[in-house]
């Protein structure tokens, strides 16, 4: 999957999202810049509260009422999303972007049959008539591997398992052939076996339709397995971004390095290895930090770090880093840059990204064993 110089599908420059707080506005996203190109898979990784959910929701401007969004540029296929009227915005949401949420237990209307919910989306957003929408909904259910669609069409959400519900949600999201699918932690609420199936399904749909995928996760293993590029978020900033192989093999930002070193590798299975984790807590909402938000937890922090402006500096083609300390070190000795990280890096192909994920490769899917994970 080479991306090349395709024009960006979604583009955000200096995206800021703030909430009104007791003592002035509180920024949850502080100047994020990112691009999703046609057909690519961009991963957005970071821990809870890093701003990744808000950032991905800005693709359709779906923010809480109290949130204030500003940006130098927020556009989809070159169209300014900030200038859209309510009607145009609804149209954009209906046609261009599909969204899958974290919790399949609560993202479907509990009082409506799941098939009807898919069909309703097709009727409203694609203007289909009743019988055509029903027919297409059944096809969509087949497409997302829901067995016996005729029977499941009539089921209510509470009658389906979590994985099945997430498949319904995915069917709804892709039903109108969006150019971009945003998946906000789509597997976090599911058990591990189902996780692997859902990721495989997303991968297959993406390959079949050529749509771009913005995948949000706190699990670097998932990101490494699915994505072309990754943006690492911390405290409302993108701290590092680049091709997933490059970020994975040679992480630059101290936060990325700490994140990667917290992932158990398959080579260590059975050995007693103490995972360092990241000491300290991520910054709380409303905590005013100047400079780099990672300073309190960073082992490389210097006094100057509290005054930097978190601009991403390109270190190698496509790979950018917001930490001046590690950028400088990388520029001084590019070959060893990656080895500053706390972990030894596995060779090509990213095997053993996440021990748990590797286990799934051998686990057949519960509904008929067709989909195994592709590393």
């Amino acid at each position, binding site marked *: 999957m080479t991306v090349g110089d395709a024009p960006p599908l979604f583009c955000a420059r200096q995206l800021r999202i703030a909430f009104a707080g007791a003592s002035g506005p509180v920024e949850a996203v502080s100047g994020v810049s990112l691009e999703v190109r046609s057909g690519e898979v961009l991963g957005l990784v970071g821990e809870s509260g890093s701003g990744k959910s808000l950032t991905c929701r800005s693709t*359709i401007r*779906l923010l809480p009422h109290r949130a204030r969004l500003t940006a130098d540029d927020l556009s989809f296929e070159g169209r300014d999303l900030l200038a859209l009227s309510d009607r145009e915005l*609804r*149209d*954009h*949401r*209906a*046609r261009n*972007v599909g*969204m899958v*949420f974290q*919790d399949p237990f*609560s*993202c*479907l*209307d*509990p*009082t*409506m049959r799941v098939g009807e919910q898919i069909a*309703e*989306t097709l009727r*409203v*957003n694609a203007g289909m008539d009743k019988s055509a929408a029903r027919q297409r909904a059944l096809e969509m259910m087949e497409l997302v591997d829901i067995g016996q669609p005729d*029977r*499941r069409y009539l*089921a*209510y959400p*509470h*009658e*389906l398992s979590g994985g099945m519900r997430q498949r319904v*949600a995915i069917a*709804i999201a892709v039903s109108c052939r969006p150019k971009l699918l945003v998946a906000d932690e789509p597997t976090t609420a599911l058990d591990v076996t189902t996780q692997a199936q859902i990721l495989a399904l997303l991968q297959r749909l993406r390959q079949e339709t050529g749509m771009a995928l913005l995948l949000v996760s706190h699990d670097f293993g998932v990101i490494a397995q699915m994505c072309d590029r990754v943006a690492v978020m911390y405290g409302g900033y993108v701290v590092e971004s680049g091709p997933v192989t490059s970020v994975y093999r040679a992480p630059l930002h101290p936060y990325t390095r700490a994140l990667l070193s917290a992932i158990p590798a398959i080579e260590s299975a059975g050995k007693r290895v103490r995972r360092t984790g990241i000491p300290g807590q991520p910054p709380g909402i409303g905590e005013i930090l100047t400079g780099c938000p990672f300073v309190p937890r960073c082992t490389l922090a210097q006094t100057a770090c509290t005054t930097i402006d978190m601009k991403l500096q390109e270190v190698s083609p496509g790979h950018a880093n917001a930490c001046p300390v590690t950028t400088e070190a990388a520029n001084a000795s590019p070959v060893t840059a990656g080895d500053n990280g706390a972990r030894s890096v596995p060779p090509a192909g990213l095997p053993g990204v996440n021990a748990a994920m590797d286990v799934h490769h051998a686990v057949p899917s519960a509904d008929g064993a067709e989909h195994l994970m592709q590393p």
Partner: protein
Amino acid sequence: MLNYFARRAGIAVVQLLGLALVAFALIHLVPGNPVRTMLGARATPEQVAAATRRLGLDRPLVDQFGSFVWGLLSGNPGQSITFAQPIASLISERILPSFLLICYGLVVAIVVGTPLAVFSAVRPGGAFDHGTRLFTTVAFAMPTFWLGLVLALLFGLKLHWLPVAGYTSGFVGAIRSLTLPGVVLGLSLLVIVVRTLRTSMRKVLTAEFVEAERARGFSTFRIVTRHVMRSAVMPTITVLAVNVGFLIGGTVVLEQVFQIPGVGSLLFLAVEHRDYPVVETIAVMAGAVVVVLSLLADLAQALMDPRVRLGARTV
């Protein structure tokens, strides 16, 4: 589904029996004697004893309760003591105005309350929300008889739009004579409709599936009318069903104020004269209405919300 219905109906029967017992016990506990009230203070003890025997009031209470329940079940609750008339015909003559009045009140509460609740819920904390809260609280806080009198004064005596009191049969007559008490009854119920509907709508509006539907590009109108309302109206329907009992209580006062010959004013007279059988019958009827309505509300809930159907199958 059938199973669920059968169980709820069984519970309703037990509730009604309990209600009959309570109504019977309460009116017999109230001091005062229907025979004394009927015959006047100068009646001799012999006369009183004879009348008491004639009316069967000297029998043991258990016997009296038994024939009361049997009378209700057989549809013939007996004679009124005061009015010397069969209770069945007494009530059937007066049921229509009361029934229409309660329906009028419900319609006013729902028709006025629903849009108030919806717009308040969509923009919580806005001027409309605050205005609605103020208006409904004030409407609730005013005693029905007082509000009734004020409206009668304004629209009846000053503006001559509507009759001040009395009841005319016929469609137009009924509408005209029931408008003022109906509005008063509706206003007293309004706060319940607005508060419960607004609260449950807020809850549903913040549910993730609403956000997911926004993400699909659905309009707020579609989300509210097709999805939010389905989940949100149920608590309101249940509360309304239970509060019809409150409305029946309201009709007692309003039928007095507006001089409407309904069951409410009959109940008033019957209590005044310690007319045991009439009071008991009306009390059980009112209770039956509430029990049946809440049974219907539960059934409606089961029909509208699939999660309520117990023993739901798993696909």
